[in-house]
Each structure stands twice: as C-alpha cells, then as structure tokens.
C-alpha cells in the first residue's frame, strides 16, 4: 500500500517545482490580464453608448453576458487543458530520462507513491487554478454586468474535472512516452473529442445514426467534451435553455450550447474512466524498466 506521507512529500515537491519554475507566477499574471480584459469587455454591455444609446433590457443583458461568459470559459478550459498536459507530459518520462527518478526510487519509496504524489501535486495546482481563476472571473462579470450564472460551483467543478481527466491521461502516457509525444497525443485527443461532440450534434440534427455513434465513441474514449457541455449548461440562464430546447436537435451541433445537463450515466462513466486511467498509469509505472 502506498504511504500517504511519502505521497504528500512528492506532492509538495511537485507544487514547489511549479512555483520555483515560475509557472505559478506566469499563469497568475496572464490570468489576471485576461480577467481584467474580459471584465472591461463585459462592462461594455452596460456602456451608455451601446445599442445606439438605448440601455439593454435585463433579458438581453443576461443573454449577452451568458454567451460572452461561455466563450471566456471556453478559453479558460482550454488554458487549463494545456496547463494539465504541459505540466504532466514530462513529469515521469523526464525524471526517468534524466535519472532523477533513480536517486528517489532507491529510497524506501514505492513507484506508486512517486506517481500518486506527482499526480496529487499537479492536481492541486490545477484545481486551485480552476477555483481561483473561475471565481475571479465570475466576480468580475458580476461587478461588470450584475450577471451570475445559475450554477457557478458546478461550472468550476466541470472545468476542473475536464483538466483532471486530461492530466491523468497525460500522466499515463508520460510513464511510457517521451515528454513531447506524451503531450501532443492528449491535445489532439482533446480537440478530436470536442469535434466529436459537434459531429454528434450534426448527426442528431440530420438523424444520422453513424455520426451519432461516432460521437458516442469519442465521448466514451475521452469524456472531456461531455464535461465541457456540463460546464456550458451550468452557465446558461433559463432564457437560453428555453431557446436551445425549442431549437430542437439543430442546436445540439453548437459546441457553446447545451439543452440538458450531462446524464448521470455519463458522469458515472467519467469517474470510472478517470479511475481506470489512473490505475493503468500505476500499473504502467510499476512495470516499466528504469
């Protein structure tokens, strides 16, 4: 059984590495710039000069703010996905290639403890980033427009889960592949899953079973797009949901809309998928030659 103390040691070391390598500072500065910039953009919705000097009605303001927020959240989810992949891609393979892992594993340490510690450290950074940047952005939108999405906690939860799924997949690949390869594969998969979601929507609109089946397969292989749609649903006010639902199947192809929250079966699958990938990473780490 992995020792919690050793796992925490490696987790702490991973967080310290992110901090010492100035990753945290760089991301924090960029995020603040994005939040200030988008906050200014949201504030324009209340500008006296908007719509030829006629203030927006509350409904229009809400819908416009919600749409803009969904696009900004897409940016944040993408940044989070990239951070997850870039941080995890070389985390195991790099340590093994540089022989850094040799000195660590010669101590009374199990390989599983090293892997879980690294995962925990990176996951902590990732979730902290999702919570802090998400909260700041929502506060900025609230201050600028008075709009708060209906399910802010779920929104941050879905985006964080998306990042954690990609992090775990990249870590698994990093136990066997060189950093660059272990990083490129999840990024391609992430975008393919996103496109898979759109293709599924098109299939739904056109009543094409093959396209819908292909979309289901991509959703099962990588649940990130399903989680993204969950985040979208959490941001949609009732007015948008009603419009999307009335648009019927044709709205499903829009990757920035969701008529319904993710099915429970899908959420259960996302958890199983995550646990299976982590278990596979532990097995891969245990059996590889160093």
């Amino acid at each position: 059984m992995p020792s919690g103390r050793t796992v925490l040691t490696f987790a702490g070391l991973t967080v310290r590495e992110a901090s010492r390598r100035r990753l945290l500072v760089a991301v924090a500065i960029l995020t603040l710039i994005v939040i200030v910039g988008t906050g200014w953009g949201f504030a324009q919705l209340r500008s006296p000069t908007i719509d030829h000097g006629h203030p927006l009605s509350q409904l229009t303001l809400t819908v416009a703010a919600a749409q803009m927020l969904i696009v900004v959240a897409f940016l944040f989810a993408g940044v989070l996905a990239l951070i997850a992949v870039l941080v995890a891609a070389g985390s195991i393979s790099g340590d093994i290639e540089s022989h850094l892992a040799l000195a660590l594993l010669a101590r009374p340490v199990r390989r599983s403890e090293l892997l879980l510690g690294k995962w925990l450290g990176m996951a902590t950074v990732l979730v902290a980033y999702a919570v802090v940047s998400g909260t700041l952005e929502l506060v900025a939108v609230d201050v600028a427009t008075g709009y708060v999405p209906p399910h802010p906690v779920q929104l941050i939860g879905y985006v964080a889960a998306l990042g954690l799924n990609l992090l775990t997949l990249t870590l698994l690949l990093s136990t066997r592949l060189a950093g660059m390869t272990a990083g490129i594969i999840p990024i391609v998969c992430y975008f393919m899953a996103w496109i898979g979601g759109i293709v599924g929507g098109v299939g739904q609109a056109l009543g094409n079973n093959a396209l819908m089946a292909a979309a289901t397969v991509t959703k099962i292989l990588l649940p990130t797009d399903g989680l993204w749609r969950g985040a979208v649903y959490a941001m949609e006010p009732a007015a948008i949901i009603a419009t999307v639902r009335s648009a019927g199947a044709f709205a499903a192809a829009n990757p920035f809309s969701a008529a319904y929250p993710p099915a429970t079966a899908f959420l259960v699958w996302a958890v199983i998928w995550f646990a299976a990938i982590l278990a596979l990473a532990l097995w891969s780490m245990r059996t590889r030659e160093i």
Partner: protein
Amino acid sequence: MGSRMVDLRERRLEAAAKEASPAIHCVELTKRYGSTLALAGLTMTVPRGEVFGFLGPNGAGKTTAVKLLLGLVPATSGEGWVLGQRLGDVDARQRIGYLPELFRYQPWLSGREVMALHCRLARLPRSVWSEEIAAALSLVGLEERADDRIRTYSKGMQQRLGLGVALLGAPELVFLDEPTSALDPVGRHQVRQIIYRLRERGTTVFLNSHMLTELEMVCDRVAMVDRGRVIATGTLDQLLSGNACRIRVSGLDLGQRRSLARFGDLDDDGEAITVRGLGPERVPELVAEIVGMGGRVYAVEPRHQSLEDRFLELLREG
C-alpha cells in the same frame, strides 16, 4: 504468555539472522532487456563491512547489477538478498545509500534542500536532519555552496552532493556507481578518504568502477565482470598472480631460454624475458642461473602485476 515468549524468541532469532547475514548475497541473478542479456547469472556474496569492488568495462552489466540489488528493476531470473532482506524489499532501502552513475538532482532546489528531501524519504527522524545534513555537507566539502541552487553547481560539485546524499543517515550499505568519474585528482583523493572512513565505521561499500587503480587502492575484494558475467572474484592477493620479473638478456640459445621455465611462466619477446609468478626472493637465483649459462644480463626489472594487467589478461582469456 507462552506464545508471546515464543514470538519474542522468534523475533530475536530473526534479528540475529539478519545481523549475521551477508551485506549482499545473490544467486544466478539474470537480467534481460528484450533480446539483450544485460546480466548473465550473477552469483556472489559480499560480507558486511567490506569494501567490494565491482570492476568491468563499460557495458559489462555493472550498473544493471546495482539496479537489481537495489530492487530498482526486477530480475528476469535468480534471487538475492541485501542486508538479509529479499531483493526489492522497500524497507531494506532505509539502510542503504546509493550514488547513481548518471544522475541529476532537482536543479531548482538547493543542495541543502535536496539533502532534506532525502532525509525525509529515508525516514530519518526530523530531529537529526540538520545534524546529518551538516555532517554530510562537511564530509563532501559543500558547506559554502549548500544554499545555492543546484543548477549553478559544476559537474564535480554535483558528484560531491550525490555522495553526500548517499551517506545521509549512516547507511549500513552504500552503493557507489563510478563515484569519481567527474572529479579532479583532489576530489578523487577525497573520495578515497571517505571510503576509508566508511570502512572504519563498518559500512559495507559496493564500489562500481572501471577505474582500476582506484579499486586497487581501496577495495578489500574485487569481482571482475565482462559481458554480464563474473569472470573472476577474490581478494586482490588471490586475483593478482603475484609478482613478475623482466630481464633484458643476451647470449642464451633457445633451449637455455626455455629452461628458465622452471622459475615461472615465461613471456619471451626476444630482447627480454618476463618470468611471471616469481617472488622477489628468487630473483638473485634466476640471475645467477642465467649468468651460469653464459648469458649477459643488462637489466633486471621486478614488476608487480596490476589489477589492470590481470583484468586485460582475463579479458583476453575470455
């Protein structure tokens, strides 16, 4: 009550057995990487408290052997025990120090922070950390740079740091894989002094090296490996076939030259004859014999066979 006493006795017996067990014992330890045979049936015993040299050319399987003994990679076949525990036992590593051949420490940490990390991983009580770290830093001469980031260290300094890290917590067994490869002559001398000190305090040292003169200076016993096999093992006295004498001589015919074979193995290059296995006390007798046969002696050079000579000889024989 009775069962507790039996339990205690068993535990004491177990502890005594561990105490009496050799530092390293392995039987037919073999490692294959795909179709490559990295180690072919390593069988050896290293008693406690010995400085044991593991000698071989690059690619002979030395580092693989150390990784197997440390339990860093599983053996394809064979078995082994280190400090009385089966290979791969995680807890046994608490009593082992290791300096890998090629290694890197976290470049974004300072030397002192790396040592603290290893104190933690080696499960040393926190109360002894600062004392252990100070002692290790002073032993390897890194006190002044201890708080600098490792990325600013030279290769030699990193090697010293590695050695210091390996010695944290006074381990019972230390594996040093090419410990002097990045060091200048002064650094090498210091490493030898450290190894002498380790021997004095009863630590077993497993020294992997291809630097023969170095092994000759510090090791109690040596195993020579080539292509994954041990080709010879023993104390230096046992391994080195003793002394030799090279004599530059003329005026002897072939028969007379061959008759000198009764003094030892002959190596006759025409100008000089080298007689192997000849103790220094018999050199005057050999010279008298040559002169008695009418030979003219120009030079007598007693030679001591070095580990290098012996190693090359074994490689040639193999």
